């Protein structure tokens, strides 16, 4: 036993980089399997872009769970609502969105995304106060309440927007792709990649460099202790819940534009995907969520290219494989 003197700095936590290498190794392994370099680059960029979108949707869920032990089964509803709200701006201003100028396009797109985030964030406030607050600490009821919220939200969307699929065309300047040699990279995917990276870096910076981030990380690790130190963790949690909901809304807008259509059922569809990502990453871990999202997207893209039939169950196989390796996800943050 070595003595630790009071003047010594705390021992540095061991860096765990094996999960970080996983997507890199997976991508490199795929080079010989895919065959041509140009399709490999296209597939890799596609998976990274899709991974970023999934990450944006999943990040809120994992933080909310880590911090307050609340799993929001209605998270998918925020995604769908975000996409629908964006159509409220994008469709009436379709002429701006289809104008052949990046600035005009962005002048529609940015307000649409901000409005979506605002609405879903505000809804997050309502949901937290009405549905989640009364049932803190009771898992069973939380699952039931948020599932009930999902049903009500979905039906309300049908009532307000109708049951049909609403088209959501990409703005003109974001269509098409950049051609580098014989590699085609779609512009929108590049944009999605960029936004995802910015958000990831922003979340990491807030978590690791600010006092709020410090409190959130401390809360994830041991909620009671943070409360005992006199911080109002519920208020902190409300903030995280709203941010998570707003991010889900943003993810919904991006996903709607990616698919170029919106329907209330995307909520259900993406909830499953987002859950798988959160489980793979380890409940409560942002880095794990980031890697998990990329892994899921890679498996979907490479799998869809190589063995289309396998793509149907590839997510489950990936989840089983990861959980065999690390039963609590890539990064186990919470002690629960």
């Amino acid at each position, binding site marked *: 036993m070595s003595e630790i003197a009071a003047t010594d700095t705390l021992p540095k936590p061991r860096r765990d980089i094996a999960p970080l290498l996983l997507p890199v190794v997976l991508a490199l392994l795929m080079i010989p399997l895919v065959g041509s370099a140009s399709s490999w680059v296209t597939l890799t960029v596609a998976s990274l872009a899709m991974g970023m979108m999934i990450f944006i949707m999943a990040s809120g869920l994992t933080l909310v769970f880590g911090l307050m032990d609340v799993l929001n089964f209605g998270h998918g509803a925020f995604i769908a609502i975000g996409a629908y709200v964006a159509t409220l701006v994008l469709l009436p201003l379709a002429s701006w969105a289809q104008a052949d100028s990046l600035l005009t396009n962005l002048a529609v797109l940015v307000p649409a995304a901000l409005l979506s985030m605002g609405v879903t964030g505000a809804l997050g406030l309502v949901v937290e106060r009405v549905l989640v607050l009364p049932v803190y600490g009771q898992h069973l009821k939380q699952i039931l309440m948020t599932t009930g919220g999902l049903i009500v939200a979905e039906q309300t969307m049908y009532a307000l927007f109708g049951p049909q699929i609403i088209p959501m065309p990409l703005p003109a300047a974001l269509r098409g792709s950049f051609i580098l040699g014989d590699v085609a990279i779609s512009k929108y995917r590049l944009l999605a990649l960029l936004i995802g990276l910015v958000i990831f870096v922003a979340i990491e910076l807030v978590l690791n460099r600010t006092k709020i981030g410090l409190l959130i990380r401390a809360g994830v690790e041991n909620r009671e202790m943070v409360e005992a130190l006199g911080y109002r963790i519920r208020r902190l949690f409300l903030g995280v819940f709203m941010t998570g909901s707003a991010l889900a809304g943003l993810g919904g807008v991006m996903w709607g534009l990616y698919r170029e259509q919106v329907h209330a059922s995307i909520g259900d569809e993406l909830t499953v995907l987002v859950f798988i990502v959160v489980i793979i990453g380890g409940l409560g871990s942002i880095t794990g969520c980031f890697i998990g999202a990329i892994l899921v997207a890679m498996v979907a893209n490479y799998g869809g290219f190589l063995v289309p*039939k396998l793509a149907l169950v590839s997510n489950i196989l990936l989840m089983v494989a990861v959980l065999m390796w690390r039963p609590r996800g890539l990064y186990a943050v919470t002690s629960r």
Partner: protein
Amino acid sequence: MMILSGDPPRSRTLSILLVVIVLALLATPFIFPGAKALNVAAKICIFAALVASYDLLLGYTGSVSFAHTMFYGIGSYAIAISLYGLGPNWASVAVAVAAGLPLALLLALAIGLFSLRVEAIFFAMITLAVASAFLVLASQLSWLTGGEDGRSFQLPELLRPGTVFIGKEWFGFPINGRILTYYLVLSACALMILALLRVVNSPFGRVLQAIRENRFRAEALGYRTVFHLTYANCIAAVIAACAGMLNALWLRYAGPDTSLAFSIMLDILLMVVIGGMGTIYGAIIGAAIFILAQNYLQALMSIASTAASEAGLPLLPGLLHPDRWLLWLGLLFIASVYFFPTGVVGRLRGKPAAKH
């Protein structure tokens, strides 16, 4: 008492309600004419059994599974594929039972051992993921399952509507294969519900409740909680598969929308919570309320919707549109989780709400 495993309804109103429901179901072919009433009655029976088996999981062990429709679907598809592929005879029904039930059992065992070690939330998420993968598989492997269209098939001769046993003279009602199928469904569902009552009132059932109340303590008392939970999951899965088989036999069809869809899972959740978790009887009440609402509330809402649109009210016609009935049941669901978590049955029994 014996037949109810010493667990009577314990409330006069509840007993009367149950007796009325059971009598109505027994007499449906003779007092409510028409195919719709018979369909509704059969659906109530099947869902009562399905929801009761889900109650074993949700109400008695406190674990939320989203894969219950998967087992229901396995049963349905087993019957459909077997009768479609091997011809309409009793041997193919036997093959379906011999293949479907073990498949459901093994899958439940695997999921249980894999995910019940940890917390309820983990189990819920894993089951959701597995069930959605199964749904995709069933709708994509069209050579086996018929894809999105599902499989229609013929029943064994004895159960076909064309088979008439007694002429039209029996009190003016034809006794045909359809009626026989209905009573087959009814009695099989009654048997399953009674069997579930037996299970939850056995020592095994008491251990499940102990685990629900305090898993750590149950483990400290020497019960291997993972195995108990897994067994409960397996029993529930097998009964769900049986219900699925009856469903397929009744509809003469199995497809993603009638047996696997996520919306059916939500329906089951609604029924179990509205009826009352952890009571088994709640399943019967919940299924009856829900399916009656599903079939007859819509007519009422359509009247209200037209009235609202004639009165020129904004938004209200859309909210009252008959297709939006689930919205109102969803609100009822949230209210019942919050205000009376023991559901209709708990309310009627009038005991203080159990703590979860």
